[in-house]
């Protein structure tokens, strides 16, 4: 049976964070309920297409999925179980934000089948959290973590962010230590990106105007130091880097996430969710009214930007996605997938980047630590001329 990953998007949050450019917004209770019903209808309808597939990972992301009630999350999971064949050991992750969970809600989710919780801590300093516009304090993060464990979760991820306004190398590393002291199975450590269209872009963007008294972003050198030390500290404490910004204790790598980099099939449900099945990528429409109306009134597909991938595009993705993984890409797998040796397509590029100390070349091709530092530069080299 073919394997499938499922992504479900919950576009709600208590309040939009100042750096956030994901598809999410605050909403009234009735709106959330209406969305959930539509989402369940989409899942029910789409499930018919996947009768021959077994689902081995589910990721419920947002926004803030825990902006829904425990009862609502329970109905969502029931809907997935009704429509799909979920494997017994499927990884079922839900994102949870401190300030929107309590022990009871987490217990409900566990009972409904969620077996992995991803908690967005981002920082353990209240002033940094406030600068980001997060709705929770550090204390509330510890509380949420505590409840997740008490509810019985044995697989927990914590998200932390570097390069925040006002952050110092020491305060960042101190936070990281305290997260590690808790002993989560998985840690995601990534940098703040100033995205266009966010309030942060207006303050910290290319021609941004920081207001008086606003904290400064760390310098490039500080950011690099944070990043280097992250790797060292986590490795020392038994977390292995398996992807550019993801670390896990052995056996706790996020199956769903790895699926993206290995180009496994996944179906996305909900507002703006992306999918790739059978080398065709698409995305659901991103306007809430249109999405709801389209499904409720049976006005046709919510799928947009349907893009069948050419062999060239598949090869490009194979490389630039695969290189995110510490293990890199296998030459044998390339040959098996495309019927052509990797050298024939990328020999020159690999040679050049290898010579610049950016790639490790052997049975597998992977990023060196230097290559990881400037991964965008390396990955762009794998785009083929059209």
């Amino acid at each position, binding site marked *: 049976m073919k394997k499938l990953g499922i992504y479900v998007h919950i576009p709600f949050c208590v309040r939009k964070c100042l750096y956030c450019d994901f598809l999410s917004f605050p909403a009234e209770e009735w709106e959330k309920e209406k969305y959930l019903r539509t989402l369940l209808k989409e899942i029910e309808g789409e499930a018919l297409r996947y009768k021959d597939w077994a689902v081995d990972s589910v990721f419920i992301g947002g926004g803030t999925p825990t902006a829904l009630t425990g009862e609502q999350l329970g109905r969502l999971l029931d809907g997935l179980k009704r429509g799909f064949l979920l494997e017994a050991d499927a990884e079922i992750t839900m994102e949870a934000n401190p300030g929107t969970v309590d022990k009871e809600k987490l217990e409900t989710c566990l009972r409904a089948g969620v077996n992995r919780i991803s908690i967005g801590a981002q920082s353990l300093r209240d002033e940094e959290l406030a600068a980001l516009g997060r709705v929770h304090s550090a204390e509330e993060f510890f509380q949420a973590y505590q409840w997740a464990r008490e509810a019985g979760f044995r697989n927990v991820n914590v998200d932390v962010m570097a390069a925040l306004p006002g952050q110092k190398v020491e305060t960042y590393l101190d936070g990281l230590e305290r997260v590690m002291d808790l002993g989560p199975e998985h840690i995601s450590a990534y940098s*703040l990106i100033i995205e266009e269209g966010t309030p942060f872009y207006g303050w910290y963007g290319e021609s941004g105007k920081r207001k008086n008294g606003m904290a400064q972003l760390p310098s490039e050198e500080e950011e690099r130091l944070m990043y280097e030390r992250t790797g060292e500290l986590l490795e020392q404490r038994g977390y292995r880097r398996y992807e550019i910004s993801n670390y896990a204790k052995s056996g706790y790598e996020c199956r769903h996430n790895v699926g993206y980099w290995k180009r496994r099939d996944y179906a996305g449900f909900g507002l703006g969710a*992306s999918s790739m099945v059978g080398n065709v990528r698409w995305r659901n429409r991103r306007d809430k009214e249109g999405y709801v109306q389209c499904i409720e009134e049976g006005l046709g597909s919510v799928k947009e*930007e349907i893009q069948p991938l050419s062999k060239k595009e598949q090869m490009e993705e194979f490389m*630039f996605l695969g290189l995110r993984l510490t293990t890199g890409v296998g030459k044998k797998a390339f040959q098996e997938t495309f019927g052509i040796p990797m050298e024939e397509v990328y020999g020159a590029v690999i040679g050049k980047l290898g010579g610049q100390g950016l790639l490790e070349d052997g049975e597998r091709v992977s990023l060196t630590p230097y290559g990881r530092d400037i991964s965008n530069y390396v990955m762009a080299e794998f785009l083929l001329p059209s």
Partner: protein
Amino acid sequence: MSGIDQSKIRNFCIVAHIDHGKSTLADRIIEKTGLLTSREMQSQVLDNMDLERERGITIKAQTVRIIYRAKDGEEYILNLIDTPGHVDFNYEVSRSLAACDGAILVVDAAQGIEAQTLANVYLALDHDLDVFPVINKIDLPSAQPQWVKDEIEDIIGIEAQDAPMISAKNGIGIEEVLEAVVTKVPAPSGSPDNPLQALIFDSLYDSYKGVIVFCRIKEGRVKKGTEILMMATGAKAEVVEVGYFGPGQFIPCEELSAGMVGYITASIKNVKDTAVGDTVTDAKNPCAEPLPGYKKVNSMVFCGMYPADGAKYPDLRDALEKLQLNDAALQYEPETSVALGFGFRCGFLGLLHLEIIQERLEREYNLDLVTTAPGVIYRVHKNNGDMVELTNPTNLPDPTEIDFMEEPIVSAEIMVTTEFIGSIMELCQERRGRYLGMEYIEETRALLKYELPLNEIIYDFFDALKSRSRGYASFDYDLKGYEESKLVKLDILINREEVDALSFIVHADSAYDRGRKMCEKLKDEIPRHLFEIPIQAAVGGKIIARETVKAMRKDVLAKCYGGDITRKKKLLEKQKEGKKRMRQIGNVEIPQKAFMSVLKLDDK
């Protein structure tokens, strides 16, 4: 077409401030007289080139003949000569005006008189044209036609109370304009029986017919078989065809005679033989003297043009050759650059002309170009008494061989409303201008007179002028001559390697400032590499400024979220796309637009 009654001919043009509706009115006139069906009618018929339509300016003079039955029951031949609208082409404009007997002055009912309105009116009056106003855009809610009429009378001093009130956009009042052309523009003078005397106001190259000469017959007649002489260039040829201008096409006729506007073909191979402003006469029965006002047009601004892809050099050569067939003011000769390879040093009338040629090469000939900073012709006097005309800074002789250098100076007139006098004077001061005087045209408007080095105005003077006067200043200049000046060559070193294509000549006093700005600019333009790149500015081997492009160290780590791979790929594509437009110099990749960055150094 013999037997045309000269009294039924009207030769006219339309003058206006930019955006007051000149081309739209031209369209309506053509439409009204039924020359084109509405299907054929494309907006702004007379602006032939895509470029002209896009920029909303007229670059090349266009001419069309219209038959109009007036209210008096007679049929008139109206020749509309549309003129270019930029100081770079001032000379062409003046020749086009010289081909007319009258001009319609279009004034925006909401804006009233603006800078170019005056400049254009004065130019028309200088050519003894009868100018009559029309008030356009009367449909605008903010229109104040009476105020505009009064303003025209007060400031320009021409009768305006009975000016047609029109909306060219909506086709209102076009009939009235045509009636005014008939009644207010005088019929052409001259006699068909005098020796031939015709003014060339434009020409273009056609691959079948050779050069097509656009002319206004002032005296005499010309037809197939006439042997003609171009009086200034001395070129002779036998006429193959004469005719007049339909919209978008040439219509042959028997004969052109005094008062008519039309074209002549004579198997002439080169537009240089048919210089704008020259007088065409009958070689066997020449007129006593040429028409006044002929000037040889010289390139004032030079730059290097290189194909982005070196293999396209022959394509660039062919394209320049073809463009030159139509554009006598374009000059070019081959040159080589260490940084950019094989290319051409090209000469232009001004910066707009340069930009137009550049865009045409890129669009019509599909060439990707790298253009170096524009410069002027400097005169280098060597110790041994030789004088060299320098168009490419790289060719500057060793400083020890140079006695002194001269640079071209222009006399400039700037018309400006009084509130901006201060800021415009400041601008001229910054550009090494010499103040000559100021005249008040009226209470709120003054004419500033300056002498300015040409190399200070070719870059961004127009933009600066506009931004410092909220678009209200107009500017005109004439080459005055050469003056001795303290000039130095500023070199740019990237990763310790001199990049010849980035060198330019600058006044010694501004060398430090320009060098510093240039380094700053390049620092922003050159992307980070795997290694650190010093950028230095040097004069005579001495480093005067330095910036550093830091090595590429670390990308930000985006969370690649929810499987949105398409977004990630777009990011990588953008990065890759950027690399395509790079020039490899040593082991540094320089974006092509960096070579133009010397241009935009004005901070204000």
